[in-house]
């Protein structure tokens, strides 16, 4: 080799060849459908360069249970138990979204007490959903077991409430068109109030564990950033959208139910990273507790179901309706077309977690495989809803 070196640069850097470095070698890994952290039967095909994600394609359909096809073949009310099984953490909000759409389709009024009960149950659902999500997310980060146990301890208390009201822990099937199925007794409300009053202690405890925790900060800050423009264009909704700083909450925008009567704030993030998404859940739990407290104070006595609604051979008039609510995971909508028969001509679910996955690839590019799990966990998906 001649001793003449042309530039300083050439001297400092060894010549790059494909053989001496791992650059250019892409390793394709299929994560899932059986994977401890994919929250069900989700699968991703990931192309890795070393440990860095260069490409990521989600694969769906491992839990495609034909909800929509079945919904078109059973009566309107017959679909109600199926909606429980969409997002199986939040059966109450699923029921509400479906009932709301049918009420729009058929022009049904809902009595005041029923609306209050719906708000109470939806917010309780939000509490338990966010609590268990945080448990799972910390689990994915390596805090194996403990946070999940804390979260499930709280979740069980709320499930007890659901069970004593509706008869089932998870699949409540509680709402009906024009109201609710059974009334809540005074004791139930008092007991629920007690549990809600104690809930902030858990939230504070969890917040303490998360906010300043070095590991959590290192694993989540600046990981999986989303810009507000991308989030809006990709139809992201729910806490994930608000973590990017976009103020859009269907509870405020549509004002369905009796939400305009309650005072609550919408927490907003700034950076749109995983840490913001995490904190969004913590803060929303605090707001939900506030709504619940107001609801317990204001709830009036009265009927819980509109007596004019037919139960047998219920036929909404010809037409279509799209109704949506703010479910814990984002905007949950039902689109129904009626041809005047006893079952819908078209029954469509707008699943928030499915659409929130649209930008999974954009969020993961350039991060390591270990981060993919954390990012996925922070989106908060439930496969029953993604694949339906």
């Amino acid at each position, binding site marked *: 080799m001649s001793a003449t070196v042309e530039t300083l640069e050439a001297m400092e850097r060894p010549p790059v060849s494909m053989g001496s470095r791992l650059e250019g070698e892409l390793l394709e890994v299929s994560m899932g459908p059986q994977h401890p952290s994919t929250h069900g039967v989700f699968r991703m095909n990931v192309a890795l360069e070393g440990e860095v994600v260069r490409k990521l394609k989600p694969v769906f*359909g491992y839990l495609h249970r034909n909800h929509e*096809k079945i919904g078109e073949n059973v009566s309107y009310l017959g679909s109600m138990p199926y909606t429980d099984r969409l997002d199986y953490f939040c059966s109450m909000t699923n029921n509400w979204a479906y009932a709301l759409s049918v009420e729009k389709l058929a022009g049904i009024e809902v009595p005041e007490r029923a609306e209050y009960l719906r708000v109470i149950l939806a917010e309780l659902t939000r509490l338990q959903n966010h609590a268990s999500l945080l448990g799972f997310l910390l689990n994915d980060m390596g805090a194996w077991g403990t946070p999940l146990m804390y979260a499930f301890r709280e979740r069980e208390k709320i499930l007890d409430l659901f069970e004593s009201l509706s008869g089932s822990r998870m699949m409540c099937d509680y709402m009906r068109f024009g109201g609710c199925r059974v009334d809540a007794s005074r004791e139930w409300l008092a007991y629920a109030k007690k549990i809600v009053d104690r809930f902030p202690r858990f939230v504070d405890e969890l917040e303490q564990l998360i906010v300043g925790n070095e590991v959590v900060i290192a694993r989540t800050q600046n990981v999986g950033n989303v810009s507000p423009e991308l989030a809006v*264009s*990709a139809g992201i909704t729910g806490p994930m959208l608000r973590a990017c700083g976009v103020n859009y909450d269907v509870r405020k925008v549509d004002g369905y139910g009796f939400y305009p009567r309650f005072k609550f704030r919408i927490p907003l993030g700034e950076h749109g990273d995983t840490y913001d998404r995490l904190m969004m859940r913590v803060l929303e739990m605090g707001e939900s507790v506030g709504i619940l407290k107001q609801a317990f104070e204001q709830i009036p006595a009265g009927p819980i179901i509109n007596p004019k609604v037919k139960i047998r051979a219920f036929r909404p*008039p010809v*037409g279509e309706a*799209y109704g949506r609510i703010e479910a814990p995971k984002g905007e949950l909508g039902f*689109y129904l077309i009626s041809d005047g028969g006893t079952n819908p001509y078209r029954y469509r679910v707008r699943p928030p977690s499915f659409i929130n996955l649209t930008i999974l690839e954009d969020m993961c590019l350039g991060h390591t495989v270990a981060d993919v799990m954390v990012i996925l966990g922070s989106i908060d998906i439930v496969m029953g809803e993604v694949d339906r």
Partner: protein
Amino acid sequence: MESLEEIKARIEAAVPGAKIDIVTNGGPSQQHSLRVDNEHACDVAKWLRDDPALRLDFCSNVTGVDWLDRTVKKTVKVKKVVDGEEKEVNETTEEKIPGHIEAVYHLYSMTHKHGPVIIRIRTSDRVENACLPSLTPIWRSAEFQEREIFDLYGVKFDGHPDLRRILMWDEFEDYPMRKDYREPDDYEYEPTPHDDVLERAKPYYTPRPQIDGAESIVEGSKPT
């Protein structure tokens, strides 16, 4: 938000040549929609997204709807002069509507917090020309939902970046959400008491009315 008539007029001024129909919805929800022709769908969608007064930047829901071939029979009373006398005569008109698949987009605005504006585009038939322009370049959220419509209804979206089956496996050949899809034979089927009950209940139900007063739904040809 402005009324649909105003939006329609403004679109027609902004996108020359666009053919827009207002599809009225007679139900209590009163969510009317705009039917856009396929050639101008992309331009119209872009305009809807970018117009400063509308700013429909959030495409919430994309749905496929399958309409089979059907005949709409309408009976109208007409006054006619028969033998020098004026009489009321029932006149029946028959109209054949060929089957088609429709894609419905529900648009909202996150900037102005209004909506929904509903647009629909439809294919010319259900078998060969089941093609529609893709609106994914305009709203990213349509990406997976259009793929789902492709998978379950068999509509090809021109201009979609990644049109593959999404829920069913790749080897699958049918389009299961179509109304004329037949499942593979379930040899485990057994008659249950429920069938007898249904049979006995039949006389108590009036025959099912169809949309637009159509009297019969003719089964469309099954795609091969």
